[in-house]
Each structure stands twice: as C-alpha cells, then as structure tokens.
C-alpha cells in the first residue's frame, strides 16, 4: 500500500487515495438479490440489445437455457444493487464516495471480466469484493488515481458467475 505522503498528493486527491488505500485487503460480502427477467429485459433495452435470448423465454429455452439470460456485462454495469443513498448523502456530482472528495471527477477506466456461467432470470446472487490496488499516475492535467477492485458474483453455494476486476480513475 502506498501512503499519500509517498505520492506527493495533497488535499482531496490525498484524502481519496488514503481512503481507498485503507480498504486494500478488506473483503466484503453482501446479498444482491435476484436477477429477475424484468431487470434483464430492461438492461437489454437500455443497451439496444434485441437478441431474443435476452427477451423471450421460449427462444432462450430453445437454445438450452432455463430462461432468458443477462447480457454479458449486466452484473458489472449495475452501479447500485440496493436502495442506494439518500440524495443528501450524495456528492454534488451525484456519486457516493467516502471522505472530503467533493471536487474529484471520477470515471470508469476499464475492466477485466471472467464470464464463468450464464446468468439466467431468477438467479440469486451475492457479491464478494475487495479493493486490490491504488496507483497514482501523472496525466497532462495533473495526478490521476486508479483504483482497481475485484468483484466476484456468486450464488448461494458459492458457485461463481462473474469474476471482474474494475478500474476507476479519479482526478481533480
């Protein structure tokens, strides 16, 4: 783990870096709920996916699935699986982040996904996650912080569905 004092960061960048770095190695597990057919169909509509395997149960069954299946990155695309935070708890940019980091700008930078089995409508999932790495790079406009977290989506008995590593970039 790299302390902010080693990175030359200050202010909100340092606060964000330290908050994320302090979470490295902390493992969390939580119940996400059931991925139902409505969520799958809505996600498919939102991305413009018209393939019948995501919309039509009989078409999915004809292909050997028990029901319609989720598009490949539905699990990773969901930003919040629970009710979410009250508006008063959100940062001005609409995101929820710990610490005094109101001025930071964040965006997705990339992802690695292992798609271990199809996610069929009715699948109940748990999420096991952990911050794995926090790095600092110098961009043209200043310091960039990259936070990489592992997200394992598993069934009740630990059956793995997706194993993802997602990187988010933060900057002032």
């Amino acid at each position, binding site marked *: 783990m790299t302390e902010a004092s080693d990175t030359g960061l200050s202010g909100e960048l340092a606060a964000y870096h330290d908050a994320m770095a302090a979470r490295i190695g902390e493992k969390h597990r939580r119940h996400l709920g059931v991925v139902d057919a409505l969520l799958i169909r809505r996600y498919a509509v939102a*991305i413009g996916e018209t*393939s019948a395997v995501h919309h039509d149960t009989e078409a999915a069954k004809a292909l050997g699935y028990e029901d319609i299946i989720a598009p*490949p990155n539905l699990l990773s695309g969901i930003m919040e699986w629970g009710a979410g935070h009250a508006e008063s708890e*959100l940062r001005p940019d*609409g995101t929820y982040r710990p610490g005094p980091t109101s001025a930071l700008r964040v965006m997705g930078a990339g*992802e690695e996904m292992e*798609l271990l089995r199809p996610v069929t409508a009715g699948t109940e999932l748990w999420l096991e996650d952990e911050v794995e790495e926090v790095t600092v790079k110098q961009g043209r406009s200043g310091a960039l912080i990259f936070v990489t977290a592992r997200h394992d989506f598993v069934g009740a008995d630990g059956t793995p569905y997706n194993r993802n590593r997602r990187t988010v970039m933060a900057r002032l």
Partner: protein
Amino acid sequence: MSAGFPKGQKLPDLVVAPTALQLFRYSAVTWNAHRVHYDEGWAKHEGHAGLLVHSHLHAANALRAVTEGLGPDWRLVHVSYRIVRPSTAGRTLRATAEVTGVSDDGGELELRLVEYDDGDMPCLEGTARAARR
C-alpha cells in the same frame, strides 16, 4: 454445429449513436446517479464536451459486436478492455471485432475489440475470448 471463424476474420461492425435518452435510461436501469451522464451542464462543468457515455455502455457495444457477430452457438468467457478516450451523446460509435486466434480444435476464439468514436479515434480497446457452447 455452426461454421468456425478463421483467424483474421472481421465480424460485422456495430454502429450506434448514443442519445441523451439512452444515457438516461442506462443510468436508470443501473441505478447510477452520476450527473455527467444525464446533466449536460454538470458534464460541461467537469470539462466534458457533452453527456458522457458510460464506460459500461461502451463495453456493452463492444460485446454486442462479438455476440451478434458470432451468433448463439458461441458464448463469451473472458473480456478485458480499457477506455482510452471518453465519448459523448450525439457522436457515432463503431464497435469492431476481429478474430486474432483460434484454438487447435476450433472451439475457442480470441478476438481484438476496438470501438471508434466518430471516425478512426479509438475510445475502447480490448480483447475477448469466446467458446463454442
């Protein structure tokens, strides 16, 4: 069994033009309240040219190019990508996929993914591996 895909084969491009409406609905279905995706004033305040396309929507486009190009006899098993350039609503995105490797038995494919933003500027670069179902 469907026909295989030889090394070097390019799958059909997927051309899309994300709208403000699409970005709002993607934010809604993923319960993503980040204002850069639906509040143009805020997005510009953060220095973006317009409403920012979600990184996962870029990925969904790239993956659709693969799944639609390969057809239902194949399934994605591994994907890796980087967002190398942000894009905004109203621009045309073209997702491309090319077979870069085939296993000896033809049952597994490696693919290179590039999604271009309004021409030839890559905004997503990545790889995928697909297996015959």
